[in-house]
């Protein structure tokens, strides 16, 4: 379960976010939408614990995973090591199983640079789900993909979310993505940005 209670987030003089309160229950998938530049990524970084400079309180489970806009892999380590180094307690066997699950089991020993863009995305998903996270954050994970590849990835992500059932929060611009993945949608709007209204899924 993720509990968010952000009173205020500033960059210098300008206030970006104000009074954002919501809960993502275990097993629930919530989409976060809003115009670009509104502060969605900023909010995700607060929730993920990457940025700790804000007023308020965020509770997140220890088992937290994140899928970034880019695959964000270690290009100097093999596909398998990209999982085992990030999850040292997982063991090689389960890491290999995670690669198998996303369909790149045969690529374990290749460097990310030797994988296609789609395979790199799959590896990023495998890394996120390998340790069966209790909470998952996705920051426009399929934004730069062509439509075919994007829907393939959405399908895979949905299957993985159904298997693992983490509390999932994801940012997207696409209504299709929001509709196909989420139980409900949160919308950021205003200046400083706050939650608009909660549309029922």
């Amino acid at each position, binding site marked *: 379960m993720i509990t968010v209670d952000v009173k205020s987030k500033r960059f210098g003089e300008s206030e970006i976010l104000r009074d954002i309160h919501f809960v993502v229950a275990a097993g629930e998938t919530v989409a976060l939408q809003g115009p670009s530049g509104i502060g969605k990524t900023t909010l995700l970084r607060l929730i993920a614990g990457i940025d700790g400079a804000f007023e308020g309180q965020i509770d997140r489970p220890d088992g937290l995973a994140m899928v970034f806009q880019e695959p964000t892999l270690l290009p100097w380590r093999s596909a398998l*090591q990209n999982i085992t180094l990030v999850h040292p307690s997982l063991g090689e066997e389960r890491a290999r199983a995670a690669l198998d699950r996303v369909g790149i089991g045969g690529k374990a020993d290749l460097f990310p640079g030797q994988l296609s863009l789609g395979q790199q995305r799959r590896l990023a998903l495998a890394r996120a789900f390998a340790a069966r996270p209790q909470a998952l954050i996705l920051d426009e994970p399929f934004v730069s993909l062509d439509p075919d590849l994007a829907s393939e990835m959405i399908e895979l992500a949905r299957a993985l979310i159904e298997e693992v059932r983490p509390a999932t929060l994801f940012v997207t611009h696409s209504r299709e993505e929001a509709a196909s993945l989420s139980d409900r949608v949160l919308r950021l709007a205003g200046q400083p940005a706050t939650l608009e209204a909660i549309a029922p899924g």
Partner: protein
Amino acid sequence: MRPRCRPDCSRRFNDTVIVRLTSLIGLLALWIIAAWIGNDPEVLPMPGALLGPFRAEVASGALPYHLAMTLIRVAWAFVLAMSVGLALGLVMGLSPRVDKWLDPWLVVFLNLPALVLIVLCYLWIGLNETAAIVAVTLNKIPNVTTIIREGARALDPDLRAMGQVYRMSRRSYLRHVILPQLAPFIAAAARSGVAVIWKIVLVAEFLGRSSGIGFQIHLYFQLFDVAHVLVYSLSFIAVMLAVEWLLLQPWERRARRWRRA
């Protein structure tokens, strides 16, 4: 997918070797011509005339002994300067605050002539091994720090966020996320490091040690024995080139393996 470059790379490697050899032979030819024109073996002997003194110095054990002494000092100074420079550069590159405070020091030390540091170390610490190695290390640290700082400033913020979210341990993060990104900078610092350090070690030996290549050059300088000065310096250059080609360059190639894959 990028094309694999194995055959192409090995051909390029062979070309490099051929060019290097030809270039060195050209230098040798220039020496022979200069010696022939000068026609005074006291000032510049023919390359062949060095073989006799070289064999004698090897046979007496003097050359291997002094070579080893210098190499030990180079190794010490190299390891110390690289470790301290790496740590300092990393901290300065990652923390703008520390950088602001330490940067003026860096500029002072970068511009301090090697000779001054060597003389001061001998004066303050004494005419001993510690002083020589400290002097050389202090000479090299600012240089390594500057190069590593550039690398630390260029670290990828996305990978940093990734390491944070997945709670990678400090140790694992340093080894698998930071160091690989710094590898090209470390290699650059190491290569320029070795080249600079052995030159400074020779000066330190010249001024205040009773062993090492620098000491021998000092000795034969006083005797005005050009042949022996050349024998000692060329032997050491050969050893340092071997270190560069057999140790540093292969290590660098290994560290870059993932780029070519």
